[in-house]
């Protein structure tokens, strides 16, 4: 790949060999390694799917945090070393990784439960959906006074003075800026596909810029809301419900114009535990397991049959609830695969500028 690789590679190979004689490799061998998003989703996956799977199959399953290092998957494929088998990814990561061959094709006929799944995309041969959720506007009811009702209110610094938390990514941020600027839900991507539309989104963000605190991990947004560091935040709907339940906070959220995203399981190309990976995917796709994830985190499941096992009191809060879904916009992952590089660069430029 690189200019120096032929020489250095052999040097390192020699070094690695020498090193492996001196220091035996750590005796951590597992039958399957999963790389999960950070808590709470990662935690819930552990209790709802991984621990029972481990108990049932007696397989040595290792669950890692993927928060730091999706780049490792690519480094791994270039180097052929073995780290992860199954990884949880976001929609645009799934499309790009499938196109680029980092993720292996999954034979969906080997996972019968998928017959009951929504959100199945035949074009996406290497990923199966396991949860979906919405990007919403959240606030602390105990501090806010009048509750906001739309993305427009995020911009209203007169009625709600103070800083706002936003996810430091152009994805969903540009969409919600357009909606706050009056673009209809259905017109968002049409608008964003034109240079004028992109300018319009950035111009809208300009207005709010002095009041934005960026977060890079949803946990930060909840923590900043709880400590009063910010008055409201763009964040994920299910995390809010989860935080209220576990931390005793009283956060509220705005349902209108939710931007929904899907998370997928992908199988890393070159995995040495393909059979175990299929075993796990089969296990995790069952209605009961899917429902356990939903019950644990108020996050929606693509498995229709799982709804039979979902707690009744939870159903109104779910992104997948027809009332909520009707008010939502799904992230156009293909749009972001095509335009992500350019928009990311412009977004970085905009964030860094005065």
């Amino acid at each position, binding site marked *: 790949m690189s200019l*120096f690789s032929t020489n250095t590679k052999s040097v390192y190979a020699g070094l690695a060999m020498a090193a492996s004689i001196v220091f035996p490799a750590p005796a951590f061998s597992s039958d399957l390694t999963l790389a999960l998003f950070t808590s709470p989703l990662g935690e819930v996956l552990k209790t709802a799917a991984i621990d029972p799977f481990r108990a049932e199959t007696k397989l040595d399953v290792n669950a890692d945090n993927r928060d*730091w290092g999706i*780049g490792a998957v690519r480094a791994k494929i270039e180097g052929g070393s073995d780290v992860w088998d199954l990884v949880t990814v976001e929609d645009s990561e799934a499309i790009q990784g499938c196109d680029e061959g980092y993720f292996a094709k999954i034979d969906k006929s080997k996972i019968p439960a998928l017959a009951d799944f929504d959100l199945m995309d035949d074009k996406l041969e290497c990923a199966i959906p396991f949860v979906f959720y919405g990007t919403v506007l959240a606030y602390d009811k105990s501090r806010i006074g009048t509750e906001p009702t739309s993305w427009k209110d995020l911009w209203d610094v007169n009625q709600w003075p103070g800083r706002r938390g936003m996810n430091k990514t152009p994805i969903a941020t540009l969409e919600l800026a357009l909606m706050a600027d009056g673009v209809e839900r259905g017109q968002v991507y049409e608008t964003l596909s034109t240079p004028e539309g992109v300018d319009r989104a950035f111009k809208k963000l300009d207005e709010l810029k002095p009041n934005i605190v960026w977060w890079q991990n949803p946990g930060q947004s909840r923590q900043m809301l709880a400590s009063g560091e910010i008055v409201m935040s763009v964040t994920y709907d299910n995390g809010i419900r989860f935080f209220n339940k576990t931390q005793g906070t009283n956060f509220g959220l705005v349902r209108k114009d939710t931007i929904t995203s899907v998370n997928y399981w992908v199988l890393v190309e070159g995995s040495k535990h393909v059979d175990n990976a299929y075993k796990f995917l089969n296990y995790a796709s069952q209605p009961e397991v899917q429902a356990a994830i939903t019950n644990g985190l108020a996050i929606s499941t693509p498995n229709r049959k799982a709804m039979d096992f979902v707690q009744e009191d939870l159903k109104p809060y779910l992104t997948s609830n027809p009332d909520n879904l009707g008010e939502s916009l799904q992230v156009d992952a293909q749009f972001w695969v095509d*335009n992500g590089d350019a928009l990311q660069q412009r977004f970085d*430029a905009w964030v*860094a*500028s005065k």
Partner: protein
Amino acid sequence: MRHWRPASDHAPTIARDQARSERAAKLRAFMLIAPLLVFLLVVFIGPVATLLGRSVDDQEVAAALPRTVTALSDWQWGTPVPDSAYKALVEDLREASTPASLASAAGRLNYALPGMRSQLMTTRNRLQRADGATSDFKALLESLSPKWSEPESWAAIKQASGPVTDFYLLTALDMKRGPDGSITSLPANLSAFVPSIVTTFTIALTVTILAIAFGFPFAYLMASASDRVAGILMFMVLLPFLTATMVRILAWGILLGREGVIKSGLMALGLSEPLDLLYNRTAVNIALLHIFVPYMVLPLYSVMKTVPQAHLRAAASLGATPLTVFRRVYLPQVAPGLAAGSLLVFIQCLGVFVVPAILGGAREQGLPVLIAHYVNKTLNWGLAAALSVILLVSVYLLYWLFVKLTKSATLSLGAR
């Protein structure tokens, strides 16, 4: 090797033996250095050089589309795209049996021209499904993706045909090549990296000035105190210095937080409006000062200890004002320590990553944060490498200045 001369038959035996044993001693001495040198070359210096190599490395497109690259080699912007190029591209894409064999090239082209990734990928997929019997490759390609009729697509391939490129370095300086090859600067609203470079240097400069402002009098106090007091003050400097940086960053995060000690203190003093102390430049500057001020105090102290009091007294007795004594007598003598301390603080500030990530807002994210971002999130490794080149060149320019000023390559905090 200064003393070594070729031994001749006429030279006295003693001199010859001496030369030989001196040579042997030098060889032995070098053999002691060699393990560390080889180790660093393999484990650290080699990898850094490899990374820098990535900033100009551009072989993905030529590897995936060899015929197309050859066919475009003589094409000039402004003239029609040669028919041979259409044919070559069709053949190259048919050859790409899996999407993966095309992926890195598609990714590279997408950096230069948004949309190229899916343009190339869909063309390949449709091409492999379609029947091959045609001779009008131009029409075939344009029917698969209309964008092939735009010469910009072809210019992007031509410019990425490698084996080396200035694309990433130009991008890192907010410049780009037009399809005709001319270099232009990006408009201000699109320039991402120069503002980050400015941010990095502004923070480093601010913290260095703060470190001088606070470190200088403190070092002076240490140097003029009794041994006992100096020992206690030294303890105060060294203890935070040895405490893990992460601990200190978290401490500042809690102190400066909305419900932190400082805020409560200010509220108790009658300040009712909640102050935002966290996620801004102030928080980053304070934490960096706390982390790096020992690098200023220690070299200053070791120089100040050696300044003879008699010089100052002599100057004062000759009628010089305290300011003159300071400026004309004291400052020149402590200047080496001041230079060493300033450069140490400045260089370290250029490389900070965790402090802005945890305590800073969007405008405090300098080059190191961007480098990590492009490595891990967007996977644009060429750009990460190009940003590293810029950072490393700045650091080494300063280090060179340091070596010139202190006449030593050693970064040390003690007396020399």
